[in-house]
């Protein structure tokens, strides 16, 4: 691999939140640079959980390469007393464990930044405006760990100790985190804990604190939990009552199904050992989505999870689902495209494609989770909507939300029972003496369906992706075809009225409105405060949660002079959908803020762009 692709933070270093003088408490970001496969996950998780346990709002981001071992990896932990969880553009403290990237990592620090590094690597030569803490990691590790082959792993715990000491973390809390991390393995726990202590002691004895960063106990996380978006989505699916799950592994979606499998095995096996679910690892995504449609056709709540390349492969079946009107829940955990792109980097780049996925006049419904909590809630919502609307529903998450750890209040058990949509039973058929599958009986564009196996001579109908009339009979008649297409448009309008409303975060008096969705929200929330405090500039803000857009979205745009649509793709994809949906006089107001380098969007980038475009 060329050395060309190892440095991560290639953006201009910027001054840290406060100068090197004066303390900075509970407000900094730590970036741990390691080598993929070196097992630093547990160490980083211990750091994250310790800060969390000290009641300090934290967020962690794993920036890993698309390979299994050997390439550079970065893990960023942000502590923010204000509760900001977006990526922080400025790294305050670097733990440079990867010799290959150490230099670049140090160069990426702002003035006043901190570098913790292997003693032997003399990085001091590269900067004179950052604080260096050299540590003899290998020596320390060797001392605590006799087994040579374990050292690579244990070494990581040493930096945990060093960081803990430098930041004045509560050691008892750290120990608790370590022991919890290795809950089932007493020996490992002890070994790792001794490594933490060794690092801690070394720092205490040999390093003199010269930087302003430290922590103090808070209570901001008291009744919160930490969970990844994909795990939250999996929980949602189980409580939505999913019965058929199909998948073909692809980063970053695999963990949705992997977590779900664990849950189902644990909670959905009946006393006699039989399963109320089926999970199939399909041969590819065409098969995965085909199975979902087949299962949904028989009434099963079925789903699959994938990412960009899989979405492309599902195009033909997506059109069948739309036209034959079959439910399906499809998770798109977005990653960087086009094509294979950067499989382990995040983006919101499939929005436009999914909205019109498949040839012909096809239109789809999308849900846009903006937090791990919504990964849970909107997953449940997706199944209800999909069955009620008899159409595929796409849940558009992304790698940042899906594969990173996020704080959240605990999830609420669904109050509403499952809404299964318009399904006729044998009794209904007896009463009605038959039915017409695609007839718009209720004027909402949604027909009534029967499920295979319904024991009534008039239950059966023929499902097809070719032209069909109200009675599901094959047709090539111009009038019958057009009638069905117009009904589908009507159904889409019904969908609009059923979509989860956007969240109106701020609707003050400002002439400027911001619109964002998904993980972009975290940066926008913080950027709005930067705009206020640094530029005394007020913004209103609405976070989208679904497509098609509800009335509230139109109203929000109508109520403002300028609307900035902030998103993580190159082609302003959500802005495009808004442009197509809004009355022309409102479409005029749309402006775009885009971030598309594969890193999660950060507040500073948003602020700078807003300031530039507003000419402040």
């Amino acid at each position, binding site marked *: 691999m060329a050395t060309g692709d190892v440095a991560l933070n290639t953006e201009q270093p910027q001054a840290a939140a406060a100068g090197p003088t004066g303390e900075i408490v509970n407000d900094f970001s730590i970036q741990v640079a390691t080598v993929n496969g070196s097992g630093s996950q547990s160490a980083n998780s211990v750091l994250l959980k310790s800060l969390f346990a000290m009641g300090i709002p934290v967020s962690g981001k794993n920036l890993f390469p698309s390979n299994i071992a050997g390439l550079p990896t970065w893990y960023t932990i942000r502590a923010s007393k204000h509760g900001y969880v977006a990526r922080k553009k400025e790294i305050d403290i670097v733990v440079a464990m990867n010799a290959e990237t150490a230099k670049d990592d140090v160069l990426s620090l702002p003035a006043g930044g901190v570098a913790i590094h292997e003693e032997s690597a003399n990085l001091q030569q590269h900067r004179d405006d950052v604080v260096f803490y050299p540590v003899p990691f290998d020596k320390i590790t060797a001392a605590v760990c006799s087994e040579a082959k374990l050292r690579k792993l244990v070494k990581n715990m040493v930096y945990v100790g060093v960081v803990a000491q430098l930041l004045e973390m509560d050691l008892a809390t750290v120990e608790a985190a370590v022991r919890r991390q290795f809950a089932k393995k007493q020996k490992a726990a002890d070994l790792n804990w001794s490594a933490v202590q060794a690092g801690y002691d070394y720092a205490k004895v040999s390093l003199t604190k010269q930087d302003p960063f430290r922590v103090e106990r808070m209570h901001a996380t008291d009744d919160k*939990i930490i*969970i990844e978006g994909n795990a939250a989505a999996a*929980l949602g699916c*189980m*409580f*939505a*009552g999913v*019965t*058929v799950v*199909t998948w073909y592994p692809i980063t970053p979606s695999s963990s949705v199904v992997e977590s779900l499998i664990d849950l189902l095995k644990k*909670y*959905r096996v*009946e006393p006699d050992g*039989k399963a*109320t*679910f*089926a999970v*199939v690892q*399909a*041969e590819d995504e*065409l*098969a*995965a989505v*085909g*199975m979902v449609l*087949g*299962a949904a*056709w*028989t*009434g*099963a*709540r*079925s789903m699959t999870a994938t990412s960009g390349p899989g979405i492309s492969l599902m195009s*033909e*079946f997506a059109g*069948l689902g739309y036209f034959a009107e079959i439910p399906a829940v499809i998770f798109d955990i977005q990653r960087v495209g086009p094509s294979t792109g950067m499989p382990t980097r995040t983006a919101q780049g499939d929005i436009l494609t999914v909205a019109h996925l498949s040839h012909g006049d096809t239109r789809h419904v999308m849900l846009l989770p903006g937090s791990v909590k919504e990964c849970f809630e909107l997953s449940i919502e997706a199944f209800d909507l999909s069955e009620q609307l008899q159409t595929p529903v796409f849940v558009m998450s992304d790698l940042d939300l899906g594969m990173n750890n996020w704080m959240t209040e*605990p*999830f609420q*058990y669904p109050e509403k029972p*499952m809404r299964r949509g318009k399904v006729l039973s044998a009794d209904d058929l007896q009463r009605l003496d*038959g039915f017409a599958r695609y007839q718009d009986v209720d004027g909402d564009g949604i027909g009534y369906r*029967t*499920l*295979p*196996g319904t*024991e*009534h*001579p*008039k*239950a*059966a*109908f*023929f*499902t*097809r*992706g070719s032209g069909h009339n109200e*009675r*599901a*009979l*094959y047709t090539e008649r111009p009038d019958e075809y057009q009638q069905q297409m117009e009904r589908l448009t009507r159904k889409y309008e019904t969908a609009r009225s059923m979509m989860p409303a956007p969240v109106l975060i701020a609707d003050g008096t400002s002439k400027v409105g911001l619109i964002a969705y998904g993980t972009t929200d975290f940066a926008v929330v913080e950027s709005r405060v930067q705009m206020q405090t640094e530029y005394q500039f007020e913004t209103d803000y609405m976070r989208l949660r679904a497509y098609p857009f509800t009335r509230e979205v139109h109203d929000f745009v109508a109520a403002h002079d300028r609307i900035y649509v902030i998103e993580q793709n190159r082609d302003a994809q959500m802005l495009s959908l808004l442009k197509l949906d809004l009355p022309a006089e409102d479409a005029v107001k749309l402006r775009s803020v885009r971030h598309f380098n594969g890193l999660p969007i950060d507040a500073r980038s948003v602020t700078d762009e807003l300031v530039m475009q507003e000419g402040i």
Partner: protein
Amino acid sequence: MATTATPPAPKAPKTNRLGLQILEYRGGKTNLCAGCGHNSISERIIDAFYEMGVQPERVMKLSGIGCSSKSPAFFMSRSHGFNSVHGRMPAVATGALLGNHTMKAIGVSGDGDTVSIGMGQFTHLLRRNLPMIYIIENNGVYGLTKGQFSATADIGSTLKTGVINDLPPIDVCTLAIELGATFIGRSFSGDKKQLLAMIKAAIAHKGTVLLDVISPCVTFNDHEGSTKSYKYMQEHEEAISEVGFVPHFEDIAVEYDAGSTYDVTMHDGSHLRLRKLHDDYNPTDRIHAVSALMEAQQRGEVLTGIFYVDTRKPSFIDLLNLVDEPLGTLPESRVRPPQSVLEDIMKRMR
């Protein structure tokens, strides 16, 4: 289609063990070409399900795209049907059976639908031994798109246009045996007796039944030089065994010579009686069956009959160990865990 079958009712209505007349098993009026082999196969399917006394509502019909794939509309209108997309019926069938594993599934496909575009899904369906009847209406061409060669066309076979096929045919039976299907046979749309017996046995089997039925395309591939024509089949069909079937609900005390006949007891207690017509015939030995097929092909024969049956191998559904009821219609109480479970999970995440 579901409601348009209106054949004249016979005087003294003959009925099956469910008391249903055969017209209850009919489908919509076919719009395939007169003489198309596919129509005869639809007829045999109707006869088989009628004679086996299967409740039509308990059957799902699945297909891809093609003339062959249209035929589910032309039989059993009282069964739900799903005419999906080209080459992807295996996935849809798999999902449908996961959603409701209590039903009989019959899939009808073509050689193009299965062996050209559908090869990937087809091989994986076989590997899973998905419990369904999979019929390939094999005419060696893409009928619906006007007769181009498919991947089952034989080397040297010609089109009306004179074009000659120079790529080897893919033998779906050999493939099916190797990849894991458990009931494999070949027949000919023109061979009523054999085909009917095979479909009836297929209905009694639990596991993937792969029936490769040569079904001439009278419009594009029934001429001199075609190796999938009626004439060619009459001249080259070579039955490896005589297929007899005794349903469980009939008296099975029928005589047979154990020396020359394999008696296979099916899951439902029916008996499949396979009388050797070749001495090197052994429907219980995979390796043997594959060799027999490959040799026959080298000899230029179109071997028909049932090549391999395994009634012991678990099906894909067996492997999943599902509850007895269809997953698709389980009540909320059985698919949504109680609030306590969520609270418990949340607690452990603190």
